[in-house]
């Protein structure tokens, strides 16, 4: 049908033709501008590099550094860092570098999965509430308020403690706990996103271009996703970035309290938890995983900070 469509387009006037011709060379899109501004933010670039390095190291590292994470060696238990064990060993003589890399995979995966879940929920709730308004808005925002008043940490600990065993039986120890933690973190953190999105929708849906879209018969779904959502996405991207770091911290906190992954799944928080009793004999057991958590969270926060500046179209450089 493409031919019938182009047939209807009026021939371009000389100026329009020149614009159409020149546009690709000088195209300045919103995202292009954002990227240019982001690159100028040196700390944000450092954060992005660091985070990519950590992610890459966790994902690809075990293929290069092929030491098993669970090989026991009581002869070399709690050995300080050396050439054979760059991060030392733990109380069972297991290699810490291998465990830290493996733990990074899980911690970072939890961070992203929980972020995706909370952002999806927040986008859905916020856009529906903001777009349809009236009773739907009222009901959804009351739900949001209730969720905001829930005591997050007690509820988090409680849910995981109570549902840990049954979900483990269904999905297996690793996958079961993974989805439980992701689900609980995501399910308790979507509210700020929902509010941001709703506020954005309330502003944008009154704009003329939405009226124009409506007048040519664009349906509500397409209006929401195609026309309004791209305009409210900037603050959501920033808060999504920051929530990856927050989710990594929450997962580590849960594991640190002994309510996260089982002992044979070494996430960064779990490694710290295991190290607690050996702080006097083997401080390296705590330092390396702790350092990884800090580096990951710090670098993500710097990326979020840079994105906040970069995605603000009112900022002029």
């Amino acid at each position, binding site marked *: 049908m493409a031919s019938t469509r182009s047939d209807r387009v009026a021939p371009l006037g000389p100026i329009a033709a020149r614009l159409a011709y020149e546009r690709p060379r000088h195209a300045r899109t919103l995202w292009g501008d954002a990227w240019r501004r982001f690159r100028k933010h040196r700390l944000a670039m450092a954060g992005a590099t660091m985070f990519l390095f950590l992610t890459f190291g966790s994902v690809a590292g075990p293929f290069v550094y092929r030491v098993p994470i669970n090989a026991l060696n009581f002869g070399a238990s709690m050995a300080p860092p050396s050439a054979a064990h760059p991060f030392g060993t733990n109380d069972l003589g297991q290699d810490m570098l291998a465990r830290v890399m493996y733990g990074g995979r899980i911690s970072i995966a939890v961070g992203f999965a929980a972020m995706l879940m909370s952002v999806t929920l927040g986008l859905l709730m916020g856009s529906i509430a903001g777009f349809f308004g009236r009773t739907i808005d009222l009901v959804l925002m009351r739900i949001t*308020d*209730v969720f905001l*008043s*829930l*005591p997050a*940490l*007690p*509820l988090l*600990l*409680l*849910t995981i*403690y*109570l*549902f840990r*065993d*049954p979900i483990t039986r269904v999905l297996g120890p690793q996958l079961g706990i993974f989805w439980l933690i992701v689900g609980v973190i995501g399910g308790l953190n979507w509210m700020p996103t929902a509010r941001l999105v709703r506020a954005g929708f309330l502003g944008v849906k009154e704009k003329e271009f939405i009226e124009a879209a409506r007048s040519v018969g664009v349906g509500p779904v397409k209006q929401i996703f195609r026309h309004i959502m791209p305009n409210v996405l900037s603050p959501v991207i920033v808060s999504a970035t920051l929530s990856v*770091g927050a989710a990594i*911290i929450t997962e*580590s*906190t849960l594991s*640190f*309290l*002994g*309510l996260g992954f089982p002992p044979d799944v070494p996430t960064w*928080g779990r490694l*710290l938890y295991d*190290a*607690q009793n050996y*702080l*006097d004999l083997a*401080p390296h057991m*705590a*330092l390396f995983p*702790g350092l990884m*958590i*800090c580096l990951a*969270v*710090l670098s993500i*926060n*710097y990326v979020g*900070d840079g994105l906040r500046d970069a995605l603000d179209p009112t900022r002029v450089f």
Partner: protein
Amino acid sequence: MTRYIVRRLLTAVPTLVIISMVIFGILALAPGDPLGQLAANPDVPPEVRQNILHQMGLDQPIPIRYVKWAASWATGNWGYSFASHVPVVRLLLQRLPTDLWVIGTGYVIAVLIAVPVGVISAVKQYSLLDQVATTGAFIGYSLPTFFTGVLMIIVFSVRLHWLPFIYNVQVHDPVRMLKQAVMPVAVLALFQSAALTRFVRSSMLDNVGQDYVRTARAKGLAQSRVIVRHVLRNGLIPIVTLIALQLPTVFTGAVVTEQIFRVPGVGSLLITSIQNSDTPVVMAIAFVAAILVVLLNIAADVIYGALDPRIRYG
């Protein structure tokens, strides 16, 4: 104003009812049997188990259990701990002083650090001090408390032997009491002050560019007076509400910090109760936390209105 407060309090009631239903529902629907240990014991015949269940009212449907629970909770009867057979209220009151002392001090110190640092770094924006403070706040905010706590134990207890790393309530010697509180207080103060400094700074920056500040300067006021009397008074309004919103943790405990330093506060009570399936205690702590959050949310809005005459409540 009174009408506003009354209306907010009235809308808080359904919110709290829903929250209590959620918490109760999670506990009631959770798989697992509160008498699981009895069931596993071959010496206890099933009839006896059934009798105990009946006595505790656990054989009734969940909605009826909820109504009974809510009615007795509202009259102040919070039940007994399964683990220690002590009334839940007394258990909580035992733990509260430790939290007020350790966490309260942490918060006070955090405010005392954050406000001056935030103000100075906003007033001298982009100065060396501002950059040091902003970076420090950013790092302090990104470091999880469990890592700073562990780090402090390694440095000050394990290496330097300056401070004890286990908090002991039996200690009554004032010097030792102070020494054992240093690290938990410092961990909390570091994190809170970092978060708060960022807010103070941005709130002050929102105000220093305003027209009324130029007017104050044009009147010939000294810089210090402009900052303290004009900018600070406006800049602190959102900060006061932020502090009010964070107050619940003073009562419900800082779970992580208490866990690291073995501080016997409400937070560690929560953890042990969850691990012991001590439902009445868990329920009480979670619900008290919810009440505090809801009430302090209202308080924050009321304070905001009282401090900022531009805001009128209808």
